[in-house]
């Protein structure tokens, strides 16, 4: 298994029980550096960073980002590559979740179509029954 595939597996397993809503905030904060106003997302992201020994690397990476003109960067090439691969792993997990949502939406639309067809079939049957019933009532009235 390549490092990239392994990172995807780590992200997938670590955030398995995290909701899509919280995960999207985590991605926004971690991949796009936008911060988060969500206590749960911040907590989970910090937990992930601590559990995987990334605090030190990320602090140095941040320092490199705010001082891009430094001659000597604080992070090594392998560290920067790994964080980049990790960002991809988060984006791939986001895509997978998005794909699941799209499939769920398609299934829902299909169910809705089936339900509509069933409803129109029931309506037709009901109309037929109603006509037959009217005729029966008429017949009964004439008989009387």
């Amino acid at each position: 298994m390549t490092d990239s595939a392994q990172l995807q597996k780590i992200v997938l397993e670590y955030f398995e029980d995290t909701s899509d809503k919280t995960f999207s905030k985590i991605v926004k904060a971690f991949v796009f550096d936008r911060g988060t106003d969500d206590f749960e997302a911040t907590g989970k992201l910090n937990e992930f960073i601590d559990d995987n020994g990334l605090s030190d690397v990320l602090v140095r990476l941040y320092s490199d980002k705010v001082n891009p003109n430094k001659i000597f960067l604080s992070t090594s090439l392998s560290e920067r590559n790994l964080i980049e691969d990790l960002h991809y792993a988060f984006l791939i997990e986001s895509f997978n979740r998005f794909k699941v949502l799209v499939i769920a939406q398609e299934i829902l639309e299909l169910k809705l179509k089936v339900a509509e067809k069933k409803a129109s079939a029931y309506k037709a049957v009901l109309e037929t029954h109603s006509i037959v019933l009217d005729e029966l009532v008429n017949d009964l009235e004439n008989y009387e």
Partner: protein
Amino acid sequence: MSNTIHIQQIQEQQLTLEEAKSLTILFQGEAYTYYDEGLSRFVFVNKDKTQVVKLQFLESAKWNEEENNIYLNSSLDDKKYLAKTELVDGFIVQEFCEPQKFRKTPLSIPEMLFANSCRGEVGWNKEGRLVCFDLDEYKKW
């Protein structure tokens, strides 16, 4: 060249990869067979896979001395992440560690960071720790 040769005799000959692969060398009374090669050295391993010997096949390079110096000058903290290494009669004798490139164990993120910083020249020693076996690459990348 016969298939079994004393290690001292090798210094007088230029080994090709093909020859190295078919060779058994005797070192300190123990037989070593070909295991792997680097850019300038062949690696031979003993039968119980506890130790390797590194032989230079490029005379211009002095990687054995260089590697020994790196180990000797490393701090105790760094030594925890280096395969135990010593120079014996000009040859590097190192504790055996199964290279990650052969074993392909899924790595955790800290292990990945370490492995990548050593350009992947890491392996698992008998204690189950991931250590760098090509000391010149240690945390260089």
